[in-house]
């Protein structure tokens, strides 16, 4: 019993530490690439990704006290990001003007970047996050594996398959 109590106090302290050391600037600068990667994976245009990313960090700051282990800040942020992506689209009206086949507007990005983003958004769900995180967050399989909580081998396999699918989609788009 005493131990359980101590453990909880420890968790609370960790939470306080997280609040003290993770300033907004540190949080944003350090993790925005990963968060953006995830948002890119779940949206069809950069404008939405930007909006969601902002909301993720705002939510994160309000919930920072609930973070018990600072070393888990990355997966914690990505969890918030996934949820925010789902909420973002759920809150939108479901009737859409046949948008499924329409290319997304370039959204202040180069046409090339928009084309890649569009292709990524057409990948099956399980491949989008690994590939977006890989390219946006340092091209490092181990880091992606750590972020997603899956094995490096699984990440490698998904990346390779996603990359081939991306090739098909980009070739199709070009033609």
């Amino acid at each position, binding site marked *: 019993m005493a131990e*359980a109590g101590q453990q909880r106090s420890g968790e609370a302290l960790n939470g306080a530490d997280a609040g003290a050391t993770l300033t907004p600037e540190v949080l944003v600068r350090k993790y925005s690439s990963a968060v953006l990667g995830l948002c890119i994976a779940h949206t069809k245009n*950069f404008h939405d990704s930007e909006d969601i990313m902002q909301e993720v960090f705002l939510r994160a700051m*309000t919930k920072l006290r609930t973070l018990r282990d600072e070393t888990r800040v990355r997966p914690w942020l990505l969890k918030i990001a996934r949820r925010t992506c789902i909420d973002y689209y759920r809150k939108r009206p479901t009737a859409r003007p046949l948008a499924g086949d329409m290319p997304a507007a370039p959204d202040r*990005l180069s046409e090339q*970047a928009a084309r890649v*983003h569009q292709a990524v958004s057409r990948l099956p769900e399980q491949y989008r996050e690994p590939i977006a995180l890989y390219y946006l967050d340092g091209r490092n399989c181990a880091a992606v594996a750590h972020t997603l909580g899956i094995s490096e081998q699984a990440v490698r396999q998904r990346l390779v398959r996603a990359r081939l699918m991306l090739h098909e989609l980009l070739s199709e788009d070009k033609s």
Partner: protein
Amino acid sequence: MNSNNDCKNRREAIAALVLDELAPQAADELREHIDACKTCRSLYQALMDEEETINSAFEAIADKSKNVQDDLIGEFEKGPHKPLGRSTLTLSTILNSRITKLAAAAVVVIVAVVALHNGSVQITTPAFGVQDVLDAMNEAQWVHCVGEITYLNVDANTAKEMDLSGVESWESVRPVRRIEKHKNGKIYFTESNIGKTSYYDPATNKITIKYRSPADPQEAYASIADMYIQQIAELEKKGAKINYEDGVYDGVSVKIMKIDFVLTPPLEVNISMVLDPATYLPKRLTAEQTDLKRLHVLVSAQFDYPKTGPRDIYEAGAPADAKVIIVDNRPSPEFLEAIAPYNAARENLPLRHILVFTQAREKSVWRTCVIYKDGRRERLEDRWDADERQESVPTAEDFEAILAWALSVGAKTLKIQIYDGQYIHYARRDLEGMWSVAEKEHSPEKMSHSIIRGLDWLGWPWIYNGKLFENDYSQENNLVCVETHVAARIKDGKLIAAAYRELYYLDPQHEYVCVREERFQRSQPPYNDRPDVKDLDFDPDDIPSEPSYVATVAELAQTDSGRWYPKKIRKDRHLWRASGNGCMSHVSTEFTAIYLQTNPWFPEGIFDPNNLLPEGAQIREPGAKTTFEKDFEAAIAIIDGKDQWSTPEEVALAYWQARARKDCNEMAVLWPGSASWNRQLVENETPVEYVFGKARKAGGKYVIVPYTDKSYYEKHGDYNLKTWLTNEKSTKGRYYIISGN
């Protein structure tokens, strides 16, 4: 010379090379091949060209995001900001009803209390004035009951579980209300016509208000008389015998109604109800339930009939300062509208059919099941674990051939169940080829709990609530997608099953078959150690982004009448499991194939319970022990015969150490009953070094010792596996293993 197939097989390797994710030696070999092969060179070059495009695209995205970062930091620097407005969290918690918390045996008594406070209506006893009783019940606006329940011969834990030592209740049909006020301070206020239940817990000083679909027909009675008739009908279905006697109560001549029935033997229930001959309404009830082995329950209740009752939970006694939590799980009108054709399709499943389904991993069939169904009558033959793992389904599409094959498959265990329209009859052949026959049961509802019922399970699962959802998959395939949230299950303040989110994809073009099902659920501890989970919430942040279970219909087929049904289903389940190589996360894939014949010819006597057992079946003598039971007893004797015994943690450690050195004798003691399968278990296993956490109570006489392989622990710092132990059968209270993963 390379064939096209060779080159196809190299596509993934080439992509890995481009991503710089190929081992150096493999990369060198592949480069050599690329130099020599035009097809592969072309793919490699295309991928490399694209790589530049993709990199610069993501760089552009990252650059743009820097502006967003600056804006965000600026926003934070302005000062403390308000938390984001969050939409009201919809909690899909399902409260455990009072009834479900009781032992199954006691439920019947409680149901009787609920039902019988309204009088007599046995249609076969006109002498008592059935119509008078019904009229009197319809005149009564409220029924007030004060009941006492006494448990005898019950251990402290069970008594705590059944903390309903007394209850005061009010019930009315107009308005529909049921209020229960328990001696322990808990209050339940149910308005089932609007699907609302309020629950007050004095321990937390919280009132939880739960809304569910009012379409749920549960407790939808037209009148108190109707409620009574339905409840009595339920008792009669269970075989209750109802008699009337003249008697005296409080010095007044009364009519006494006696209800006796045997629940699952040896549970006997005897109810005695005093009916006031002046008002024709019940005054007092006593009920006695006897389980010859351990449980004895006495119920006594007094009834009166006030003009009114509590209007809300506060009038029933909940304090005004209690915190209120709203759990709203009502389906939206859009959902009900969208789901209506699905439910119609589900309701109209062919009532007369033979269904054969097989379950296989890769090509090895491990289960075959045959269901004959004719209206309510049903026969099921379920074969598990084929003797020959290479059994494969005949390729012929001829249904008769497949049926004959399914019925002839050699299997380690076989269950046969017949529902003859009135009773369930059940027999099972065990691993030693001996048959056991269960007592027939009356409740057809049990069939849905214990076995697969057929098409409604395989193609049209029961979807009672949820929200419409859209994602790429539903849009691209023109499917109706329904999202449901299922709350976590908590017992004694601990999370025992994680919450999950489920997506069902229904195909309107093909009879609304559920063509895909995705479940998002954390599959492993340490969720049960979370101290922050106190209420039954659905916590969206606790749901993984990737499904832990996916069932996809790979092929649809049509019956002779043109009805669509799922023919082949693929199920991928993400699992954590201890293995020879440590704790592995892997995907287990199963395939289900369905063969369906509608309006078939049935062999004579197929639903006749006299034909439950196959010819020549050897029935295990009552009291004869199985090999498992013999092994188990031998192990317990060794455990209890030792001078000293270890703690649960030490037992778990000793078991895995014995397993590492392939010491089957030691394993068979530490895990009683495991003697017969230990050798198969360790034969090809590579030893693993495990680390163990502290044992914790898991309810009743069980404890859990968490453990994991060393490398997993070093990486994650927690345990993802569990060993279950108990001391239930040891006369000295010594712990031994009963389960583990």
